[in-house]
């Protein structure tokens, strides 16, 4: 199967979608409602490997864009599936039932962006420890301010290091 025939077979089953294809890459924009069915179908097409899941925080539009990066060992083509969800209470169906490796990617995204994945068994802390300030990779999280408040005493930045400030 080549890029065009993969797009055709997906559009035949799920209706017209915004698809772009270049050499060895397919980009598909999808609706979050039919994500699980679409993912099942895509896996049947031979996309066995889920490389990564990424989130882009479009703060002005108030949306999160989730990208699922897939690879087919059989066809040697990458497929990038994009889904949008609201930024305020981001909820998404988990694909960990389809690809086992999704479990760890979703756990990471949940920790860093606060996306809730329905159906994922284990969304416990991964990198952070006892973190209570909200997802740190969101655009509205000011890490400079956080570092200032946590690691510098009040007014410490104004005093010089040699005076025993910081």
């Amino acid at each position: 199967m080549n890029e065009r025939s993969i797009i055709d077979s997906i559009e035949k089953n799920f209706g017209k979608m915004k698809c772009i294809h270049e050499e060895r890459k397919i980009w598909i924009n999808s609706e979050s409602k039919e994500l699980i069915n679409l993912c099942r179908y895509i896996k049947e097409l031979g996309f066995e490997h889920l490389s990564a899941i990424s989130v882009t925080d479009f703060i002005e539009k108030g949306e999160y864009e989730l990208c699922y990066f897939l690879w087919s060992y059989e066809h040697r083509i990458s497929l990038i599936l994009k889904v949008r969800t609201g930024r305020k209470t981001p909820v998404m169906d988990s694909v960990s039932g389809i690809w086992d490796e999704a479990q760890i990617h979703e756990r990471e995204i949940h920790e860093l962006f606060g996306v809730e994945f329905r159906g994922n068994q284990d969304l416990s802390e991964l990198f952070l420890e006892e973190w209570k300030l909200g997802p740190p990779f969101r655009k509205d999280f000011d890490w400079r301010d956080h570092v200032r408040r946590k690691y510098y005493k009040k007014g410490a930045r104004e005093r010089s290091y040699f005076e025993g400030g910081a």
Partner: protein
Amino acid sequence: MKEKSPVEMGYELLFGPGHPGSGNFSVKLRLDGEKIISARADPGYLHRGFEKLMEYRTPMQNAVLSDRICVFEPLAWNLVHAEAVDKLMDIEIPERAKYIRVIMAELSRIQSHLIWYGSMSAGTGFDTGFKLAFGYRDYILDIFEAVTGGRLYPAGYICPGGVRRDIPNGIEKKILWVLDKADKMKFLERIENPFLRSRMKGIGLLKTEDAIRLGATGPVLRSSGMKSDVRKDDPYEVYGGLDFEVPSLRDGDAYSRYLIGIREIEESIGIIKHALKSMPEGRLKTIKPGFTRIPEGEAYVRNEVARGEACIHMVSDGSEKPYRCKIRGPSLLHMIPVLEYLLKGQQIADVPAIYWSLNPCPADTDR
């Protein structure tokens, strides 16, 4: 209700982060005597938040930052980052720069595999292998010093637009000399150390379907019988025109992972020799993007680093800094799902052998 005795309850053992064999990574083992009932990886000791840091810096600053993603192979990560920016900015790379990139990335792969080989040997008590591997690696570091100025960290030598500077005159001869040295590593495969065999043969079995299911890539996947390599399947730079084989082994145990590193070193030596021969002559002129704006759009690049598949997804909103940069390291999958799966049911003495056979890098697990 009768209280359970400690033996019945089992006890918990922390492998790392203070353990000399674990290196900034921790695995919580639930034990029943000597047997591991379950293992739970505990990453985060090296989490520096590169994805967030990169949003605050220009591509040329990020090139330097990308060194630190993986401590063992900074040049390979330089290349992944540079390719993502090149794609976004639509920069045409000079042919000679492409060859230099490939040569440096392959040298970086060899030295990373030597670290792997060395630490695997050290983890199983084969000290000769450890010392030999780290000795050979030092020759490669000499080349890095001559070309990039840094023995370990090249400070963004492979940068958007090509490379920072051309390779020095006469370095080709030195590279060939070092490759002949590294080629001698082959004899290690034939040593058949009985002690090493007994510690690694049949330990940590990973079947092909499990390797795919758990997301293993690179040498770990190839030693489980799957012939898959991004350099071959999805060629980037000049890999499409270079002649090389993708080695794969069938057994999928720790010993085959021990052997596949040496096979890959051989292939890398071949790639470098071929690239040195076909590299265009003349001095290199690169146009490096300074503080220019990155055009709006997104790019997704895949590379084969020494540990497996590395990806970067970069989104730009038209400013001079990337809006979002997602980094996918191979070790995240190897060190959490694969390691947890392999350790289950094993003996406690086999933990270092299994752990090191996966070519772990805590730095790129946590990012």
